[in-house]
């Protein structure tokens, strides 16, 4: 609920600020109104999209300030990629409107494409070209001259630690190298706004870490990044603002701290052997943590947020032993996407096939 309030506040602020101002003016101005307008990089209003019978997006609203990493967090099939595809002009919304850098994505897709970069699961590099050739190709197709494209390609390959592999066919690259090349491809024309669609899905921890460092560096240059991810950890680490999306709807929106406050920083989780012990375990957790525990009946688990991690764990563990409840697992956990979902929606993050249906 607090999050929705936040959205409303932003809306009201912007409506007031932009009223009566010419549309599409992007130059910086000392006037408050002008600044407020250009401070929004991406605006999505009431966007819906249906694939066959599946409603992939249902009246999505988003406002993404300039110069931050905005995380769109949700399970597979929640509508994250559909949102990105609409903003990147790859897909048309059934209803609603969206602007990127102040430009309508449906009415002026060509102008939007001059301002954006797209990387991630749906935007591939050419595996039969070398890293250098890929970058030059995408640069040339973005309107750069041959010389500029070559120079920029060299810069990016060095920056992304791909200089040694620059003249190898990208088919021979490791997963992490390919993702870095993919990201570099989207940066050739120095876009103001960058869409990263699950940039680290399927990467090993080391590859993920190196990509995170690169993304963090980008934002310091003033690029606005819309990042979709299934990992709370990733959104937490990179994003200044997060929208949680589920079944095509934004169900929460706020800073990582705000979202985590809703699930508790840490939580104690108990998995019982006999489902019949679930009510007893729930009572113990409620007593030991002074918080309403969340029950996951399907997996015979109870989770409760705690503020005093280790001590709470000791209390719960003692009480469970005293009650003679057999457990499969008993431990202290950092919040995961599942817990955010549990606490926001009351159900676990389930993936659907909506995005595959595209």
């Amino acid at each position, binding site marked *: 609920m607090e999050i929705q309030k936040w959205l409303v506040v932003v809306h009201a602020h912007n409506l007031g600020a932009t009223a009566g101002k010419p549309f599409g003016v992007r130059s910086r101005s000392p006037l408050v109104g002008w600044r407020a307008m250009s401070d929004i990089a991406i605006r999505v209003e009431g966007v819906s999209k249906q694939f066959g019978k599946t409603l992939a997006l249902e009246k999505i609203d988003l406002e993404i300030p300039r110069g931050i990493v905005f995380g769109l967090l949700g399970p597979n099939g929640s509508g994250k990629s559909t949102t990105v595809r609409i903003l990147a002009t790859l897909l048309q919304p059934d209803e609603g409107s969206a602007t990127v850098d102040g430009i309508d994505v449906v009415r002026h897709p060509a102008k939007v494409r001059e301002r954006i970069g*797209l990387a991630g699961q749906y935007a591939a590099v050419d595996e039969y*070209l070398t890293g250098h050739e890929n970058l030059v190709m995408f640069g040339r197709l*973005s*309107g750069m001259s041959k010389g500029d494209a070559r120079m920029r390609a060299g810069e990016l390959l060095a920056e992304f630690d791909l200089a040694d592999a620059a003249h190898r066919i990208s088919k021979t690259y490791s997963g992490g190298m390919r993702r870095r090349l993919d990201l570099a491809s989207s940066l050739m024309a120095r876009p103001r706004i960058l869409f990263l669609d699950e940039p680290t899905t399927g990467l090993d921890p080391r590859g993920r870490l190196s990509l995170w460092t690169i993304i963090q560096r980008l934002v310091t240059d003033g690029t606005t990044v819309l990042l979709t991810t299934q990992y709370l950890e990733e959104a937490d680490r990179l994003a200044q603002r997060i929208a949680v999306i589920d079944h095509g709807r934004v169900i929460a929106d706020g800073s990582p701290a705000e979202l985590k406050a809703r699930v508790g920083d840490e939580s104690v989780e108990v998995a019982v052997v006999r489902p019949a012990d679930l009510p007893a375990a729930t009572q113990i957790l409620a007593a030991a943590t002074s918080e309403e525990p969340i029950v996951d009946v399907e997996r015979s688990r109870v989770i409760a947020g705690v503020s005093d991690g280790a001590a709470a764990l000791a209390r719960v563990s003692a009480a469970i032993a005293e009650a003679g409840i057999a457990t499969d697992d008993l431990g202290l956990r950092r919040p995961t996407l599942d817990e955010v979902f549990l606490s926001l929606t009351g159900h676990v993050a389930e993936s659907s096939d909506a995005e595959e249906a595209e």
Partner: protein
Amino acid sequence: MTSPARALKDSGVVVWRQLIQLPRIPEVLVFALIQPVMFVVLFRYVFGGAIQTPGESYVNYLMPGIFAQTVAFGAVASGIGLAEDLRRGIIDRFRSLPMARSAVLVGRTVSDLVRNAAVVAVMMGVGLLVGFRPSGSLGAIIVAFGLLFLTSFAFSWIGVVIALSMKTVEAVQSAGFIWLFPLTFASSAFVPTDSMPSWLQGFAVNQPFTVVVNAVRALFLAQPVGNLVWLSVVWMGGISAVMIPLATRQYRRRTG
């Protein structure tokens, strides 16, 4: 940059991309070269002795048919290449760039034309090795190559339409071949059509592939061409005129 100039530049970049890929994808090269060579060997040495071609040696009769079949089968490669690009997400990235929309399909068909030209040149060499002796004038042979390239271009667009109509690469592969076999074999490419039963002759004599094969053969072998060249141009131009807008529409729908 004005828009036609931009379209030309972007198409050029896509053609460049496809041509430098070519030697790096062994399957494509093998497919493009081994198959027509195999047909030459089979028909020249296995079936050839049993096929009567009045007035010409069988190898002279065969090679123009092989050239035409080679460029026609290029349609399959066009289709598979585009289907692979769609599946891998390359097309999505192209579409997120401020490039000319037409460059994806134009680049594809033009680069396939260049590839086919190279393959036909190799087949010409193979033909000379197995005894092909064209008697046509240089001018006539140049016109014959021109017709083959026009055919390559028209058939590539058919392959593109098939690729854009099918959901998977495998489907594109099967659908890409299925119509080519009756079209190229129920024609004058390998055997004279008058040996066929009359119900088949009606199709075999009049269908566009036979028209092209007859025109190319007449040009290579210094036979009277009549209106065959013009008829071929009309057929292949007509196929292109239908397939290009169809492909464009399918592309918009597929990627819209």
